[in-house]
């Protein structure tokens, strides 16, 4: 098995899909020779040229809007929005165009596009460069939402998203870009809608996404020592959501903690908690706890930032609260 960073795994997925299908192309700000703000597109520009690895003006509205037009007419664009925070500039193109065109047209169009977006805090980049906004998109029928935590998940899911005929939001965590992981030799695509149990356990289910999967695993390790066995479930895709795997786990452990980096209020944790409460109520032995960022913008100072975003300690506390 080879080992790749999360960024390399994403680049490899892009490369393979671009080789396989000449309708696939990349566009975004500084994705060309510069290689992307976080280096993700890297050498793709050298491999595929500036037509298929397109540097755009600082025009998110046009990047996404043009992707919609290109997708509707036979291409398979993979636009990049430099920071999730800038999705605010192109929401109309995502929400009112990409997501709804197929439906509004009575099924007579498809919009195969995958929007790659770095999310998350941890770089002292402050309130306009640190957000995790995935929850918004789960509330938009017509979009799929992917949020991988490991290099191999990122690779397999990105390939699936690019081959998917629907508009898909693909959220990558900036802090994960440099993390290394093994890529199975037989890895091809990982279907959207399959959760992955990152660690088996029997006392409590921790549902965690993206970077929080690692913090949940750390928490699980520490809790193990105290005799608490934690199962860590990574949904990997928020829509389609693999409710079955989550519910199975909760039916086994009877307790649930949900962890995401986005602030708690209005976050996707509420959705998961509601699904569990509705569909596995009789199995629940304790309140469901949500762990997420405090409900504040992300501050600049690193210590404040750390205080605001959820950490391993917060997960441990929540697990203890439901298991005691």
């Amino acid at each position, binding site marked *: 098995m080879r080992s790749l960073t999360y960024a390399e795994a994403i680049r490899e997925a892009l490369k393979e899909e671009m080789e396989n299908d000449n309708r696939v192309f990349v566009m975004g700000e500084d994705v060309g020779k510069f290689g992307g703000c976080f280096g993700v597109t890297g050498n793709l520009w050298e491999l595929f040229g500036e037509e298929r690895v397109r540097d*755009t003006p600082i025009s998110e509205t046009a990047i996404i*809007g043009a992707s919609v*037009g*290109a997708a509707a*007419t036979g*291409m398979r664009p993979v636009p990049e929005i430099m920071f999730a925070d800038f999705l605010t500039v192109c929401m109309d193109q995502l929400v009112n165009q990409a997501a709804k065109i197929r439906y*509004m047209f*009575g099924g007579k169009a498809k919009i195969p596009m995958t929007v790659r977006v770095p999310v998350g805090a941890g770089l002292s980049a402050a309130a306009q460069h640190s957000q995790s906004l995935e929850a918004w998109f789960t509330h938009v*029928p017509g979009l799929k939402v992917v949020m991988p935590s490991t290099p191999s998940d990122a690779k397999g899911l990105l390939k699936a998203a690019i081959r998917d005929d629907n508009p898909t939001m693909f959220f990558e965590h900036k802090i994960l870009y440099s993390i290394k992981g093994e890529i199975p030799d037989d890895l091809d695509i990982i279907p959207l809608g399959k959760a992955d149990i990152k660690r088996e356990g029997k006392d409590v289910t921790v549902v965690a996404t993206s970077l929080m999967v690692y913090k949940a695993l750390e928490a699980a390790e520490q809790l193990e020592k105290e005799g608490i066995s934690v199962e860590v479930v990574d949904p990997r895709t928020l829509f389609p959501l693999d409710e079955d795997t989550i519910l199975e786990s909760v039916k086994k452990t009877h307790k649930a903690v949900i962890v995401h980096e986005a602030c708690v209020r209005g976050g996707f944790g509420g959705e998961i908690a509601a699904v569990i409460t509705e569909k596995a109520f009789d199995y629940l032995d304790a309140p469901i706890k949500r762990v997420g960022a405090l409900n504040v913008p992300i501050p600049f100072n690193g210590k404040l930032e750390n205080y605001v975003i959820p950490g391993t300690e917060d997960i441990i506390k929540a697990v203890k609260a439901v298991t005691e």
Partner: protein
Amino acid sequence: MELSKEQLIEMYKKMVQIRKFEERVVKLFADGKIPGFVHLYIGEEAIAVGACSAIEPKDYITSTHRGHGHLIAKGGKIDLMMAEILGKATGYCKGKGGSMHIADVDLGILGANGIVGGGFTIAAGAGLSAKMRGTDQVTLCFFGDGASNQTTFHEGINMASIWNLPVVFICENNQYGISLHQSRHQRVADVSDRAVAYGIPGVTVDGNDVVAVYEAVNEAVKRARNGEGPTLIECKTYRHRGHFEGDPVVYRSENEFNEWLKKDPIPRFEEKLTEMGVLSKKEVDEINEWAVKIIDEAVEFALNSPEPELESAVRDVYTDIIEEVRK
């Protein structure tokens, strides 16, 4: 003028067809047969017809909330349109879209759009796609004077200009964005002045003169096919009806309205064609009757069509997932 007699007649027929279509929509709306919002194109027919006469079936258009004219001009099917406007299962969008979302991607009609300015960037994308796929397809992007103040105007045209995309941006300057006169929403007198900002040609034509529109668009389409990039064409016109059906139209004067009525593009073109001997008075009447007959048939088709099944509401969201039905 390079237009053949056949082409001129075809253009006249399309204009009449649109007018009759819209007049019937007025009536159906007044009769309570049409749900939702409808925005009519009466008075602006020369633009859609002039423009679409300059392109081929393989080409694309993006339309607006005021889209019936564009769709008919591009070859959209009258019966499927009427059925859609009435919300029927047989409509273009199976009753899910309605007037503001009619599309026929196979005919290159990338959809009406309920978002003002929604078309600019989609058109740029269709242009990019054509370019990358190595075809010579051109995209016409229709939009209003009001839309020229939207975010998308700026980003869409800029992108098309820097990449030399084969897109023609066609402003239907009917003087108003709902109730706001152009002089109150922008300082330029001609929307085409804005072409300068993108280093592309900008022209203004009489939007009530179908041949003038045709000529300007034809020129722009040639440039686009040649890889010379986009053009911005402004067509001055006026809508005869309110912004939407039901608009009490408190914001413009009787006088202004009457002045524009005199410039109605259809009688003008009719006069020209009869003067030129292209059409006789009798042929004109026949065309008008033919147009009404087609509408009659379309309305009958639409009225007799079934409502969509309730469960169709959950289909067509994704290509591969049907999430749930109402239990």
